[in-house]
Every structure is written in structure tokens, then in C-alpha cells.
């Protein structure tokens, strides 16, 4: 079959050249995934590999008095039982973490949460290791523990005696060596004069909102395999950030980075869980101790003790003038970071930039605190704190509109940030389609027409929410691209395809620049020996940052093709097929053209005192959601009749994948909104399994779900694109809560919106609160 391919010979029949960006190309790795052949770390095996199982703390906060491993060590087949003492012999200072070097590979002296790794058993047979773990006995002297974020902010119970910032982030430096506090970051934003504005406001509203502890729950649990020897270590890992893992492991070992090699197969989901160090440091330490390759693969249950989303308390106060303009907003946010900071301080800071919402407000005050508590650590989860904040500010915004008897959409429209206006940080807002996403949602909900209120016990209602996010900056991505003597193209980039389709999108960008079909581009599996630096696959940053790096690499290659053509005497504008060009230059099928690209956007760090800056982000993401619900007022059950989401993702590079990113994000957050919650008793997660922690399944999908990317083009984006992985998560929760109030008049201020929570609120409304038994 004839195709118009001029470069390379690998094009699939029918593959089209040109117009690569904007194609709904199926995922490049689709075949591997539908045949069951795609490789994941959790199922990977190396010859001679041993398995490790982890013994975990049963105390939320305590001093380790003794660990008795003798019975475990005697189990036939046990290779070695390892505690922190053994780890310190090979890694003298075994603390890691992106913001604070606070997390030990295995607990040292103290344990800080129930589930913390205390010892590990290594055996050839994982069943044997698991059995031996049950025989380890640890004795603790229990210490007072703190679980609640507000208590942690004011309480004298301290999780860590001294704070140890990692040195990576300037705004944490002042916390170095600080004692007597659980505050791991205190971000402040001060704009205008909120107190004066509140005093002058016609109306002032104040509410407090809570979010619960929820889990990323990728279906592939955490897994790493380390293969160490004196000359270097190779780590196979389910990680979203191989470059970070490499740097951090090198630091722990005191080695240069080039002796640390991180290889990443496909990821069975990530959602922010598989960032920074997770199992990699433990696997490395164990491999050093037993001098064999060691695999640490967690069970689903163990994921609950590894990393979660931040629970939060959000106090928000808003002043509104007589015309319905918001004049001031004060936000106090407390992030429950658990026992180790992980990336919590970044979550607190980056989300703090937009805590006041997508509104044009002259007077803004934000205090955002990352707090240590004695719970499993919290990190980033698809939205980097934004969904928790939007839950608060969009519920609050709706409550204001209702109180002032203003149409919720009109009230929002009146206050939305417009092009050219300063956002709370001071950065002038450009290229964010706030009005468009809100308009599209309103239109799809038929907002102009009244909704029938329902019959009998079933009451219907609808609600909307709109939100903004500043993408994570400043961060670096590097990409390399080679063209072989036959013209075929290979891309080396560290972005991890964990299901979001980045490989396909990057190939489309290469294809667009080089004018070749995207499916002919090979993406090299992630391997830090081969693939260059990337800050991490997180925060919807990849398509923009890595997308630019890939574009630059491809453009450089394109320029080199032209130069080579000139060099071999081709006339200007020659369309010589690449294999011929190489042959002409090297005399045979030989040689390479290599392009490279590095991208790091500009950034001006916020002033530490005011949080203000004129360049906090290279682009803004935004979304709106709308929900139509039916509440069974006799039981509190809520049926989602329709769920509509519109996002601004710039120009979609792959419209089909964008659509699935939107619906996937919405469905994940539908779970966080309606039922997902980690139940915790005395620090112990009591529903640490999929039997008791339910996530959305097929029958939970709303009958009508509509998703849309509005017309948009980001001039500074690669071919007009913005990232989209998180965007659709923002507004789901408040849209549904707002719809519930519209339906039956009750307002919920804590997630999840379970039937019992709705029912209890209805009873309070009816002046007959439900009395608890026992």
C-alpha cells in the first residue's frame, strides 16, 4: 500500500503524514497491553532474585525498645532479617524525602505511624518471608500521638523532635533545625487589606470545610527491584520520577549519579503515589546487605500504609459588597501530612497560590500549613491539593450565592478572573478559559430552564463549580532524539506513561515536527542510563514541559537534516528520502542525527513575606463541573443523574486520550466525593483492603456523563497544548454537594457525601438529629 512516507520505512500501512497533533491515534503500546505482554515491575522477575516482606509498626508513636527477630530468622528458607541497625551499616544516614530528609528506610529509634516499616525479611519464597514477618516481635514505649491537623498545629505533641529540610526548596530553609513544631511549611499570601475590606463589606461569610484521607490505589501496588554490586546499582521500579529516584539513591549511597540506574517498565497507575522514594531505598539497602537482587512488592493492604492524599481543614471567609462583588477572601488551610513530609510542603505551597479560587479579588489572605501527624504519610494525588481547596471554596461560593439569593452561575460569572487581571499572587492572568468552561457546563445542564424538583421522597437538584490551578513550576525536562541511517526515529524522554498516554502524545509531537507518522516513532523504555533528566511525571506538567523539550529536540534534528542535505549538495527544499540522505553522507546505511532539547520555564519565586510574584506559573489550568442529582430523602442515597465537565487543556494533542483523561479523572473523584474514605482508629487504618475501601466500579458510573475540552490554544504551549491529567478532578466534589443542597436543602461540609452523612444532615434540618446508639 502506498503511503507518502519519505523518512524511514516503519510506517504502518495507512499511517498518515502531517497533522500529527490533533489526531486521535490509539496508544502506541496498545498491543502490548491487550495481549497481557506489557511489563510491570510488580510482575517482573530477575534470575536469582529474593523477595522481601515488611514488618510494620503497630504503634502510632513510640520509642522502639527492642525488636526480636530470632524466631523469624529461624524459619527455614529465610535468607536474612533486616532492621535499621543493618541498614545503617551500609547506608550510614538512611533518611530520604523530597522536602525533608525525615523518612528512614526502616524505623530508627522511633516509629511515627501504624504501618511504618520496622524490619524486613528476605527469602527466596515470598510465602516464607511473609510467614517469618509474623514471628517478629517489637516492643515499644508508647508516646502521645496526634492525628488531627488542627490539633497538630496547636498541640504540644510533636511528631518529630527536630525538622530536617532537604535543602531542595528555598522556602523551607528557615525550618532547618526548628524544634517544638509540627509545621512543615507555612505558606503566606498577603494581598491588599482583608481586615479593612471585611469591615467595609456588605456581607461577610465564614465556613469551614473538611476533606478525608483517601488513597491513590493504583491497581499495580508499589514495587521495586534493586540489583546492587560494588560498581553500581540497577533499580527496576514502578516510579513516576526516575530522575529523582536516581539523585536520591545516589545521595544515600554517596555515589555519583552515573552509578545509579533506574529502569521503569509500564506503570499500573500512579496518580501521584509513585513519586519520590517509595520502595527503591529499601530494596537497595536490602540488596546491599544480602548481595543479591531483592524485590520489594507490596500488597494492596500495604498501599494504605505508604502514601495517601492529605486530609484537610479549610477555613474560608469572604466579604461581598452590595453589588455582589467579592471584595475580600481569607483562607486558612491545614494539611494533614502524616508522619513524613513527602511532598506535602509543595502541596501546601503550590495549591496555596490559588486557595482563593478563580475569582478577581482585591484583598486576599492565605495561610497554608503543612503539618506532621502520626498517620500514614500524605503526598500529591492527582491535583496537588487543588481538589481539596476547590471543595471548600466552591461550596462556600455556592453558599454565598444562595444566602444572597443570587444565581450561582451569575454570581460566579460576575467575579471570575478575566484576561489581563492579576491573580491573587499578582501574576496577570492570560489564556485561561474560565468563562468558557463555566458557560459550557451551564449550557449542558440547561441552566436557563428550571429543573423539575422531583416527586415524593426523591428530590432533584443541580449544582456547578469552577476552578483554577497554577501548573507546577519551575521544573526541567530534557529530551533526546536520534534518527538512524534508515531514517527511523527514536525518542529518549523520561516522562512515564502510567496510562495517561504521554508516549503517544510525545510521538505525535515528534511526528508533527519531523512530518512523519507518529506511530513510526519509537519511544525508548525509561532507563536513566539512556533517557535524560526529567523532574517527574506529575502535576499535569509533562505535556507542556517535556512536550517542549521533545519539540526542541525534534526541531534540532530537523535543522540537522537540512544542514546534512546542504552538506551533501542537495538543493534548497530538496525532498530527498532520509535513507538516501544518510547513504549520500556516509556511503552506506550508517550514522545518526541527534537532536536534543531542554525546557525550563521562567519563574519568579514568591516573596516570602507576601507570597506575591508576577510569574508563578507558565500556564493556568481550569475546569468546571456540573451535576444533576436525585436525593432519596428517606435514606440519604444520592443518585448522580448527570455529570458534566468542561476543561481548558489548550489544544488537545490527542482528542480521544484527552477525553479519557477527563472522564477517568472525574470518575476517580466521584469515588473521593461519594464514598472513599480511610477509616482510622487509634492510628490504625481499619479498612485497608478493597473489600472495605470501595472505589468506583462500572455500576457507579453516572448514567449520563458528558466531558468536553473547550476551544483553546495556549500560545506558549507546544502546538497550543496544556496538560490535562488533573484538570477534571477539581470540581466534581463541590458540584455534587451544591446539587445536593439544591435538591433537598442540606449542606455538607465534609467529604465523603455518604448516604449516612446526607441522612444525618436531613435529620438535623428536620430538627430531629439522629441519636447514636451504645
Amino acid at each position, binding site marked *: 500500500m502506498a503511503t507518502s512516507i519519505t523518512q524511514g520505512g516503519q510506517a504502518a500501512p495507512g499511517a498518515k503524514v502531517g497533522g500529527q497533533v490533533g489526531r486521535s491515534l490509539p496508544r502506541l503500546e496498545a498491543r502490548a497491553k491487550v495481549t497481557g505482554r506489557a511489563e510491570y515491575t510488580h510482575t517482573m522477575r530477575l534470575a536469582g532474585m529474593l523477595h522481601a516482606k515488611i514488618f510494620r509498626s503497630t504503634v502510632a508513636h513510640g520509642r522502639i525498645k527492642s525488636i526480636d527477630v530470632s524466631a523469624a530468622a529461624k524459619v527455614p528458607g529465610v535468607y536474612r532479617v533486616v532492621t535499621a541497625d543493618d541498614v545503617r551499616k551500609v547506608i550510614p544516614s538512611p533518611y530520604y524525602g523530597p522536602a525533608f530528609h525525615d523518612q528512614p528506610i526502616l524505623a530508627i529509634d522511633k516509629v511515627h505511624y501504624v504501618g511504618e516499616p520496622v524490619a524486613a525479611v528476605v527469602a527466596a519464597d515470598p510465602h516464607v518471608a511473609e510467614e517469618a514477618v509474623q514471628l517478629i516481635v517489637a516492643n515499644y514505649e508508647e508516646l502521645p500521638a496526634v492525628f488531627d491537623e488542627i490539633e497538630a498545629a496547636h498541640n504540644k505533641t510533636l511528631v518529630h523532635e527536630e525538622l530536617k529540610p532537604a535543602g531542595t526548596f528555598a522556602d523551607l530553609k528557615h525550618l532547618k533545625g526548628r524544634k517544638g513544631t509540627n509545621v512543615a511549611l507555612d505558606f503566606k499570601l498577603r494581598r491588599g487589606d482583608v481586615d479593612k475590606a471585611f469591615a467595609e463589606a456588605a456581607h461577610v461569610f465564614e465556613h469551614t470545610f473538611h476533606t478525608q484521607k483517601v488513597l491513590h490505589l493504583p491497581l499495580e501496588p508499589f514495587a521495586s527491584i534493586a540489583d546492587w554490586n560494588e560498581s553500581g546499582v540497577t533499580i527496576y521500579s514502578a516510579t513516576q520520577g526516575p530522575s529523582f529516584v536516581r539523585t536520591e539513591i545516589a545521595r544515600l549511597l554517596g555515589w555519583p549519579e552515573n552509578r545509579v540506574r533506574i529502569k521503569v517498565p509500564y506503570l499500573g497507575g500512579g496518580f501521584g503515589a509513585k513519586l519520590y522514594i517509595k520502595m527503591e531505598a529499601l530494596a537497595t539497602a536490602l540488596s546491599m546487605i544480602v548481595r543479591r537482587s531483592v524485590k520489594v512488592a507490596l500488597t494492596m493492604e500495604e498501599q494504605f500504609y505508604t502514601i495517601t492524599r492529605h486530609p484537610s481543614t479549610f477555613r474560608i471567609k469572604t466579604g461581598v459588597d452590595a453589588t455582589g462583588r467579592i471584595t475580600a477572601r481569607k483562607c486558612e488551610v491545614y494539611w494533614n501530612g502524616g508522619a513524613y513530609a513527602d511532598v506535602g510542603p509543595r502541596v501546601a505551597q503550590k495549591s496555596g497560590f490559588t486557595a482563593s479560587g478563580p475569582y478577581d479579588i482585591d484583598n486576599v489572605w492565605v495561610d497554608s500549613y503543612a503539618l506532621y501527624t502520626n498517620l500514614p504519610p500524605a503526598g500529591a494525588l492527582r491535583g496537588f491539593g487543588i481538589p481539596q481547596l476547590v471543595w471548600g471554596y466552591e461550596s462556600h461560593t455556592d453558599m454565598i450565592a444562595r444566602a444572597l439569593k443570587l444565581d450561582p452561575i451569575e454570581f460566579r460569572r460576575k467575579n471570575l478572573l478575566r484576561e489581563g487581571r492579576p491573580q491573587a499572587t499578582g501574576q496577570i492572568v492570560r489564556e485561561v478559559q474560565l468563562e468558557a468552561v463555566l458557560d459550557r457546563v451551564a449550557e449542558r445542564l440547561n441552566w436557563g430552564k428550571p429543573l423539575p424538583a422531583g416527586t415524593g421522597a426523591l428530590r432533584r437538584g443541580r449544582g456547578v463549580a469552577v476552578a483554577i490551578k497554577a501548573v507546577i513550576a519551575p521544573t526541567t525536562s530534557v529530551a533526546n532524539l536520534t534518527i538512524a541511517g534508515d531514517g527511523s526515529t527514536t525518542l529518549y524522554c523520561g516522562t512515564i506513561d502510567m496510562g495517561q498516554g504521554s508516549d503517544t502524545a510525545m510521538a505525535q509531537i515528534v511526528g508533527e515536527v519531523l512530518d512523519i507518522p507518529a506511530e513510526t516513532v519509537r519511544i525508548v523504555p525509561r532507563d536513566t542510563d539512556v533517557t535524560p533528566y526529567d523532574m517527574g511525571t506529575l502535576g499535569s506538567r509533562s505535556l507542556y514541559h517535556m512536550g517542549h523539550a521533545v519539540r526542541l529536540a525534534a526541531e534540532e534534528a530537523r535543522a540537522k537534516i537540512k544542514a546534512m542535505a546542504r552538506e551533501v549538495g542537495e538543493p534548497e527544499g530538496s525532498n530527498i528520502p532520509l535513507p538516501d540522505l544518510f547513504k549520500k553522507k556516509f556511503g552506506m546505511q550508517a550514522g545518526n542525527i541527534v537532536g536534543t532539547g531542554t525546557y525550563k520555564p521562567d519563574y519568579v519565586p514568591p516573596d516570602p513575606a507576601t507570597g506575591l510574584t508576577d510569574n508563578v506559573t507558565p500556564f493556568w489550568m481550569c475546569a468546571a463541573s456540573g451535576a444533576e442529582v436525585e436525593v432519596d430523602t428517606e435514606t440519604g442515597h444520592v443518585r448522580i443523574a448527570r455529570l458534566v465537565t468542561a476543561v481548558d487543556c489548550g489544544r488537545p494533542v490527542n482528542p480521544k486520550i484527552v477525553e479519557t483523561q477527563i472522564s*477517568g479523572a472525574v470518575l476517580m473523584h466521584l469515588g473521593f466525593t461519594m464514598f472513599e474514605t480511610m477509616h482510622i482508629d487509634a492510628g490504625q487504618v481499619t479498612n485497608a483492603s478493597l473489600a472495605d475501601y470501595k472505589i468506583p466500579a462500572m455500576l457507579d458510573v453516572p448514567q449520563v456523563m458528558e466531558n468536553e475540552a473547550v476551544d483553546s490554544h495556549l500560545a506558549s504551549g507546544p502546538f497550543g497544548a496544556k496538560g490535562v491529567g488533573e484538570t477534571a478532578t477539581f470540581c466534581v466534589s463541590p458540584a455534587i454537594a451544591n446539587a445536593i443542597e439544591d435538591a433537598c436543602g442540606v449542606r455538607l461540609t465534609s467529604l465523603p457525601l455518604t448516604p449516612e452523612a446526607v441522612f444525618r444532615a436531613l435529620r438535623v434540618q428536620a430538627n430531629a438529629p439522629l441519636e447514636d446508639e451504645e
Partner: protein
Amino acid sequence: MTRTISFSLNGEQVSAEIKPHHNLVEVLQREFNLMGARESCGQGMCGCCTVLVNGEAVSGCLYLAAFVDGAEVKTVESLAEARTQALSPVQEAFIEAGAFQCGYCTPGFLLMTTQLLDRYPEPDEDQIRHYLSGNLCRCGAYPEIVDAVKLAARKRKNPRPA
């Protein structure tokens, strides 16, 4: 306590040395290098470990390997045509409908969909949702999976000329 089990695996007669406490997924992975069925929740709730035993879908993580002695076992690796490796209509439909993201749960959904269509060649939306309600996809590709099932039903009804 080691015992030998013999069974048909993806059409081939095989045997393996196992212990009574080994489950089917670990034996498929360890002895036969078949990684398509994979343990995730470990409780039969997610469907990532779906395997067909004597034509019925089971959760391989809750199934003692000893119980497949003499049985006929099929995994996702059997869906593509053995000789040509041509994809089955269900596999094709999943690709075309964009019915997966990370792919970890996909083998389970493919096997369950194949079963569904064997039983109900033209399932309605309600049948699809109920049949697949015990398979979890954290990426939330459910709407696309429903599309894929419908597309696969059409493909199976009107096979492409070879």
C-alpha cells in the same frame, strides 16, 4: 508436600510442581512466565487476576493451583490467534475504543468481555454493566470499556473478511 498438576494451558498440555498453598496466578507467573493475570487486591474484588478454568472466569488469586489439575485453563495470552498473533475482535475493540489507560486491569476486562459475548452476543448496556461490575479500573476507563464491548459485539457479528 509438593505435588504435580497437569492441565491444559492455552490449548497446550502442561504440568507443574506446586504446593497446596500456591494460588493459580503465582503458578502461571512463576512456572509459565504468563504475566497477563496479575494479583492486585488479592481478594477477588478487582479482576486483574482473571483466568478461565473450564470455560468459567475465576479470580486466580483466590484459586488454589491444585484445583486446576486436569482442567482446561485459559489466560489473556490465548486471546490472540496462536499462529498469526492476530488480535481477537475484543482486543481490537478495546484498542479502537480507547478502553484502557495503564493497562493493568485490561487482561481481566478482556477475558470477562469475551465471556460476556460468548454468553450474550448482543448485550445491552445493563447486561454489560452488571457483567463487568466486578472488575475495577482505577484509571476510570469504564465509559470506553462499555463502548468497546458494544464495538466488539458488532465485530464478532460481522467478522472482517480475512
